[in-house]
C-alpha cells in the first residue's frame, strides 16, 4: 500500500508519456487532438440525451423517444436543426464582441482535456503542473460568457452575465482549496500521478473535499440548483438571450462540455480515474464520467433553484471555512500518520459529518444568518 508515498520522485520515473509512435511528436499530437475533440462532441451528445431521458423519467414523463431507438438520435437532430437556423445579430449589439464570445467560451473548455488521462499515460501532455493548468484555464470561459452578456446590449443578458461572474468568483476558492487537499495526499500536481496514487479512491480519504468540489463545481458551471444566470423566470434566458443559430449552439455545447469537464475532474481527482478491475481503463473512465453526470442530473431534478443571496452565502460562509479546515486537517493527518491510510477513512468521514452538522447548526443559531 503506497498511498502516502514518502518520496514522490520515485514515482516520477515511471513512463508517463505515450510510447514513441512512428513519427513521434506529430502523430501523438494528431491522435490525441482527434480523440479529444471526438470525445467531447460525442459525450456532449450523450449527456444531452442522458439528461433529457433521465429528467423525463424522474418527472414521470417519457422524454424524447421518436428520433432513433430510445430517442438516441435526438441530439443529432437538434444539432442539424440549429445549424440550419438564421443567424440574428441585434442592431444595438457590439458585433465583434458578440461574435468573439462563443469562441472564447468554448476553446478553453476543450483545452482542459489536454491534461485529463484516459488511461495510464494516455493523455495529450502530462504536465507536471497539470491540475494548476486546469484551474487556470477553466476560468477563462467566464470571460466568454461575460462578453456575450455585455456584447448583446440587452439588460437581461448583462444581468445574467454579472450573476455568472459573481458566482464563479465566489465558488472558485472553495473548489481550488478542495483540490489542494487531494494534492496534499498525492504530493504531486500531475494528473497522471494523482490517478496513480489512488490505491483507495480519494472520495474515501477526502469525503469533505469531494462534497465541496461537487457543490462548487455544479455552481461554477451553473447546473440547476445554482443556474441563476439563466433563471428563465427572472431574466428570459440570461446571457444567451440574443443568440441564435450556430452561436447559440456553441453556448449550449459549452454548458454540457463544462459539465463534462467537472465530471472528468471528479473522476480523476476523487474516483480513481481510469483505475478499476476487469474492464479496460478507458471504459472505466467513461462509466465513471457517466455516473457522475447522472448524479448531477439527479440533484438538478431534486433541488429547487436557490436565491442569489443564498448562493453567495453558501460559498462564503459555508464552503470556504469548511474547505480551509479540511485542508489543514488533511495536512496534519499526513504529517502525523504518513503510513496508516486505512485508519484515515473512518476518521475523515466522521470529521466530515461532524463539521457539516456543526456548521449548519451555527447557521441555525443566527450566526451570519442572511436577512431577507
Amino acid at each position, binding site marked *: 500500500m503506497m498511498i502516502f508515498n514518502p518520496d514522490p520522485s520515485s514515482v516520477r520515473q515511471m513512463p508517463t508519456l505515450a510510447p514513441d509512435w512512428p513519427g513521434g511528436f506529430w502523430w501523438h499530437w494528431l491522435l490525441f487532438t482527434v480523440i479529444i475533440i471526438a470525445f467531447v462532441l460525442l459525450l456532449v451528445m450523450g449527456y444531452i440525451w442522458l439528461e433529457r431521458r433521465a429528467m423525463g423519467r424522474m418527472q414521470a414523463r417519457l422524454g424524447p423517444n421518436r428520433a432513433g431507438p430510445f430517442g438516441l438520435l435526438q441530439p443529432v437532430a437538434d444539432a442539424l436543426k440549429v445549424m440550419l437556423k438564421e443567424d440574428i445579430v441585434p442592431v444595438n449589439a457590439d458585433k465583434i464582441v458578440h461574435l468573439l464570445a462563443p469562441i472564447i467560451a468554448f476553446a478553453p473548455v476543450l483545452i482542459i482535456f489536454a491534461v485529463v488521462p484516459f488511461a495510464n499515460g494516455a493523455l495529450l*501532455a502530462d504536465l507536471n503542473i497539470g491540475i494548476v493548468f486546469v484551474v487556470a484555464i477553466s476560468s477563462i470561459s467566464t470571460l466568454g460568457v461575460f462578453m456575450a452578456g455585455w456584447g448583446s446590449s*440587452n439588460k437581461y443578458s448583462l444581468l445574467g452575465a454579472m450573476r455568472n461572474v459573481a458566482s464563479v468568483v465566489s465558488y472558485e476558492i472553495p473548489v481550488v482549496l478542495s483540490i489542494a487537499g487531494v494534492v496534499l495526499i498525492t504530493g504531486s500536481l500531475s494528473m497522471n500521478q494523482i490517478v496513480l496514487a489512488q490505491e483507495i479512491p480519494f472520495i474515501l480519504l477526502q469525503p469533505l473535499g469531494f462534497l465541496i468540489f461537487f457543490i462548487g463545481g455544479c455552481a461554477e458551471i451553473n447546473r440547476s440548483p445554482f443556474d441563476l444566470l439563466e433563471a428563465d423566470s427572472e431574466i428570459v434566458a440570461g446571457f444567451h438571450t440574443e443568440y441564435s443559430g450556430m*452561436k447559440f449552439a456553441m453556448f449550449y455545447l459549452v454548458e454540457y462540455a463544462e459539465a463534462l469537464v467537472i465530471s472528468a475532474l471528479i473522476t480523476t481527482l476523487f474516483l480513481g480515474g481510469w483505475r478499476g478491475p476487469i474492464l479496460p481503463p478507458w471504459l472505466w473512465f467513461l462509466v465513471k464520467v457517466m455516473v457522475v453526470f447522472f448524479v448531477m442530473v439527479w440533484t438538478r431534478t431534486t433541488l429547487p433553484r436557490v436565491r442569489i443571496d443564498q448562493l453567495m452565502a453558501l460559498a462564503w460562509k459555508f464552503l470556504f471555512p469548511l474547505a480551509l479546515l479540511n485542508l489543514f486537517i488533511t495536512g496534519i493527518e499526513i504529517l502525523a500518520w504518513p503510513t496508516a491510510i486505512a485508519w484515515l477513512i473512518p476518521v475523515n468521514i466522521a470529521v466530515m459529518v461532524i463539521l457539516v452538522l456543526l456548521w449548519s447548526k451555527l447557521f441555525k443559531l443566527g450566526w*451570519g444568518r442572511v436577512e431577507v
Partner: protein
Amino acid sequence: MLINYGYIGLFILAAIAFTIVMLLLPAIFRLVGINPRKPNPIKNATYECGMETIGRSWVQFNFRYYFYALMFIALDVMVVFIYPWAAELRKLGYFGLMAVLIFVFVVVVGYLYAWRKRVLEWK
C-alpha cells in the same frame, strides 16, 4: 518536459481553429443558399419580452459583487501560495505547516473582519 508545452500550444491553436470552423459552417451554408437571411427591424431589435427597449444597457448601475471581487483577489493570491506548499508538504514537515498556518491566519483575520462588517451579505 518542455515538449509537453509544445503539445499544449499546438492544441490551443487546434481548439481555436475548430471553434472558428464550427462558427463558419452556417456562413458557408448561407452562401450556398441553405440558411435563410431575411432581416427586418423588428427581428433585429433587442428582445425584452415584447416591450420596446428604453435606453441602452451600457449604463452605470450598482451591482453588488464589488466587495466579493476584492475578497476574491485576496483569497485567490493566498490559494496560489498554498499549491506549491501542498505538493511538497512531506519534505517541509511541521515547520512548513506552521508557516502556512500563520500566513493563512493573517488572511482569515481579514475575512472575519469582512464577515463582521456584513460585506458577505448580498443586499
